[in-house]
């Protein structure tokens, strides 16, 4: 099924070069299109029970008691509570503040928090039994908004409800700089929670073996996150828990940290039941209880000189962390590090706070804080260009960071800066703007408008994060002469299995079908760090590349010593494998570890230096049509140019960009999580909608390649950047069409109606 279009010459070259840069068929493609791929809910073990979770109904209060309905038949049902936890009742992450189950006498912090677990012979019984568990509580006053949290009237955390705060400073006094500007544009921007809405709901299957070891398999991004959390919760050593990923039906960050919670529950109830338990969330439960994108309020001031150059940028970011710390400090860090945008400015101040409320915790979602701040700064830039009567792309070009420029944290960009290329790429295809835009348009006609945005995204962990992680990966020559890549980077749809096969085969100089990827089990693969932060290809892919090169060199040495130097590597490998067959391990394995690029330094105390080893760059153009009667917004055109360094697999890259683009368009126009008293009021796919085929325009994707010298073949991250920018382009296009600004997402028809016609709306 290899692409036939390039003819024989290319296919011979591909065999030798391992196909980097070509869109080979995904290695997991056939299993997925035939329905053979095994997701967690497809797995069964003998004697398996089905689990269900009993949840709190109040946002905050003391858990007084858990009792069983005496009239219900409990004979084949198992119940577990916090009292059944062997180790420390926490989900270990950054702060150990979140319990796996609220204990009796403990404080409930949000609606739908887990208080008990059940297991039953079938799913229907398990869910039915949940209705017969009686939970009594004494409610306490709760906090439902960031404003209430900051007022400090009810304290949930410390003495100010602030989980974490940060400050970035560049240049001199910010007020003096603003005072010296010719024009200051100020705005307040609000973005809502967003549901990841992976189509496979979360789930885990746990069982304990006769040696007291706990095995958990499920839908997850980061096997070693779950491993770390389970060791603490279950009081086990490294070998006492084995975490394995099943084929995972999407994650987008939603399966970064939350799976530890479900793994904990499956493990606890399986232990109590003494048999395997599968715990799969209902869609409604998944929407109601699991993490979402952090809501944010961002105040942005932009000082400009009359010639259109930026004088100063001042940003204040507040994000709603929800009831527990989870990943909020890291999300906030990324939010503020991206808050001043890919622009040159002499004076910058960025402040950020993550606050505690009594909503279910917000967590990782593609972009990780950057989409929120990008929305704010790109709306500001749109307003600036408008105020200065400059072409919006021209305004960006004038102020964009270029090679050799210095970022807000003082990082000098010395390679892989694709800023001009992405702007040029969009400008080239933009064409004439559609007619009828602006305030003066015929009120009965469809209003059309255009918006653009320009942004960047740091790939990999922040600062020295990658050094601390020290991700490892291995490539082994197996006794049968085949190769195996071992890493804990999971494939959640983004194509890890395929691109790692390509990278390894290329480095080894062997055909692709000689390489396979080891199952993502903590028993078989080293810790490569989590599958997050657009780091899989760029960071771990590079480690795989190095490990494979080391192995190839070792094979070459062996061949040299055995007079086989003139044979192709695959042949040498087969003979070496035969030779090794008698040895203890029977295989030859090379491991490599992350190496930080030289000259990339970061200071956590002053929050300055190189925030990320490298950035991806992107520009987006959106044309909209607004219906004059229903105020529905149709995206008629969406052009997205993204600099990915090097596309190891162009179709997979395109798929990443387009998937992220649509999530951003959805966030801009129709996705909305509605809370009522800390409870998700629209916890179903019927009400919590995401874009369909019919809502989606033809997406125009342009891949730009500005290679990163320390990525595999020049590749850098692509997973998150497409989520960052399109929302601002949409809002600016609507402003262009209607002549009034839209600074809050989503821009629903009723929001437009309220703006245009406050009277009829009320």
């Amino acid at each position, binding site marked *: *099924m290899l*692409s036939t279009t390039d003819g024989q010459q290319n296919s011979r070259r591909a065999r030798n070069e391992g196909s980097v840069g070509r*869109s080979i*068929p*995904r290695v*997991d*493609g*056939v*299993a*997925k*299109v*035939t*329905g*053979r*791929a*095994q*997701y967690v*809910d*497809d797995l069964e073990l003998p004697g398996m029970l089905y689990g269900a979770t009993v949840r709190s109904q109040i946002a905050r209060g003391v858990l007084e008691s858990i009792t069983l309905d005496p009239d219900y038949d409990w004979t084949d049902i198992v119940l577990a509570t916090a009292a059944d936890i062997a180790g420390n009742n926490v989900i270990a992450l950054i702060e150990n503040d979140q319990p796996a189950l609220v204990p009796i006498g403990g404080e409930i912090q949000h609606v739908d928090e887990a208080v008990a677990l059940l297991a039953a012979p079938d799913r229907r019984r398990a869910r039915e039994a949940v209705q017969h568990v009686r939970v009594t509580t004494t409610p306490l006053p709760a906090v439902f908004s960031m404003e209430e949290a900051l007022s400090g009237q009810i304290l949930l955390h410390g003495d100010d409800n602030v989980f974490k705060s940060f400050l970035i400073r560049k240049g001199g006094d910010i007020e003096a700089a603003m005072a010296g500007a010719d024009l200051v544009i100020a705005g307040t921007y609000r973005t809502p929670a967003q549901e*990841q*809405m*992976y*189509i*496979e*709901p979360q789930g885990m299957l746990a069982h304990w073996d006769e040696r007291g070891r706990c095995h958990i398999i499920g839908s997850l991004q980061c096997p070693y996150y779950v491993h770390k959390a389970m060791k603490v919760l279950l009081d086990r050593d490294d070998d006492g828990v084995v975490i394995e990923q099943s*084929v*995972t*039906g*999407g*994650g*987008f960050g939603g399966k970064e940290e939350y799976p530890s919670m479900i793994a904990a529950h499956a493990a606890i109830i399986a232990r109590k039941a003494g048999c395997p338990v599968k715990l799969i969330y*209902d*869609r409604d439960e998944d929407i109601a209880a699991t993490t979402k994108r952090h809501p944010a309020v961002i105040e942005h001031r932009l000082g400009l000189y009359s010639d259109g150059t930026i004088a100063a940028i001042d940003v204040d970011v507040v994000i709603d962390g929800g009831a527990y710390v989870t990943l909020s400090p890291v999300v906030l860090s990324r939010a503020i590090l991206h808050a001043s945008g890919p622009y040159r400015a002499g004076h910058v101040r960025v402040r950020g706070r993550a606050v505690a409320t009594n909503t279910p915790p917000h967590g990782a979602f593609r972009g990780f804080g950057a989409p929120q701040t990008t929305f704010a700064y790109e709306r500001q830039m749109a307003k600036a260009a408008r105020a200065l009567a400059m072409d919006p792309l021209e305004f960006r070009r004038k102020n964009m960071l270029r090679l050799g420029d210095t970022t807000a944290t003082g990082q000098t960009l010395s390679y892989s800066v694709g800023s001009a290329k992405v702007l040029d790429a969009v400008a080239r295809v933009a064409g004439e703007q559609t007619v009828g835009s602006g305030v003066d348009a015929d009120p009965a006609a469809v209003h059309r408008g255009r918006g653009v945005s320009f942004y960047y995204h740091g790939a990999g962990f922040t600062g020295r994060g990658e050094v601390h992680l020290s991700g490892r990966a291995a490539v082994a020559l197996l006794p049968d002469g085949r190769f195996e890549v071992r890493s804990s980077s999971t494939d*959640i*749809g*983004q*194509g890890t299995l395929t691109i790692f096969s390509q990278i390894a085969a290329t480095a080894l100089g062997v055909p692709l079908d000689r390489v396979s990827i080891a199952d993502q089990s903590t028993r078989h693969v080293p810790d490569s760090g989590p599958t997050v932060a657009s780091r899989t290809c760029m960071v771990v892919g590079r480690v795989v590349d190095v490990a494979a090169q080391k192995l190839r060199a070792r094979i070459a040495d062996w061949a040299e010593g055995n007079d086989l130097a003139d044979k192709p590597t695959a042949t040498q490998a087969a003979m070496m494998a035969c030779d090794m067959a008698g040895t203890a391990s029977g295989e030859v394995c090379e491991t490599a570890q992350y190496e930080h690029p030289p000259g990339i330094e970061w200071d956590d105390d002053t929050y300055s230096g190189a925030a990320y080893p490298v950035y991806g760059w992107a520009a987006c153009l959106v044309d909209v049509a607004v219906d004059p009667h229903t105020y529905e917004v149709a995206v008629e055109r969406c052009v997205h140019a993204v600099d990915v360094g090097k596309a190891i697999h162009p*179709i*997979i890259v*395109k*798929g990443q*960009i*387009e*998937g*992220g*683009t*649509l*999530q951003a368009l959805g966030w801009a126009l129709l996705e909305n999580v509605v809370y009522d008293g800390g409870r998700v009021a629209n916890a*179903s*796919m*019927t009400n919590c909608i*995401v874009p*369909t*085929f*019919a809502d*989606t325009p*033809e*997406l125009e*994707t342009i891949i730009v390649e500005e290679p990163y010298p320390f990525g595999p073949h020049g590749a850098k991250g692509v997973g998150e950047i497409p989520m960052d920018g399109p929302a601002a382009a949409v809002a600016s296009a609507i402003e262009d069409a209607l002549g009034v600004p839209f600074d809050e997402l989503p821009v629903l028809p009723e929001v437009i109606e309220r703006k245009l016609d406050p009277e009829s709306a009320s």
Partner: protein
Amino acid sequence: MKIQAEINGEMREFESSPWRRLLDVLRTDLRLTGTKEGCGEGECGACTVIVDGRPVDSCLVAVGQIDGRSVRTVEGLADGEILHDVQDALVRFGGTQCGICTPGIAVCAAHVIEREPGASRERLRELLSGNICRCTGYQLIVDAVADAAARRLARSDD
């Protein structure tokens, strides 16, 4: 109740309460786990199967309703190891990422191109709009289905 139905071309007879969801019977009793559950409320289309020539959400169908009818699931698309045009195109064009929506989309798209091989891209979007994909942004799926339709049309022209 005893239910008789043709499943992927094979007559099957089994015992079930008529009220159970077709989705559960397929996945649990018949071990046809290719059909997926994404929402259980008729919104996502991951559970799409063809009943008597019509695509339906199997999470909304009571199994009693299929008595005496024929059901086609994703397992019934390929001819042995030879993929259906739609499956082959989804692999080649990158129309599957995480893959959880793919069985439903493949089933629906196979039905669509068998009925309407000349459908435009816009029409394809309309016909497939009961199936949600959160990964792809749909573009590569439309590319794949359009290609499969074109190949089918070309074959019927010969």
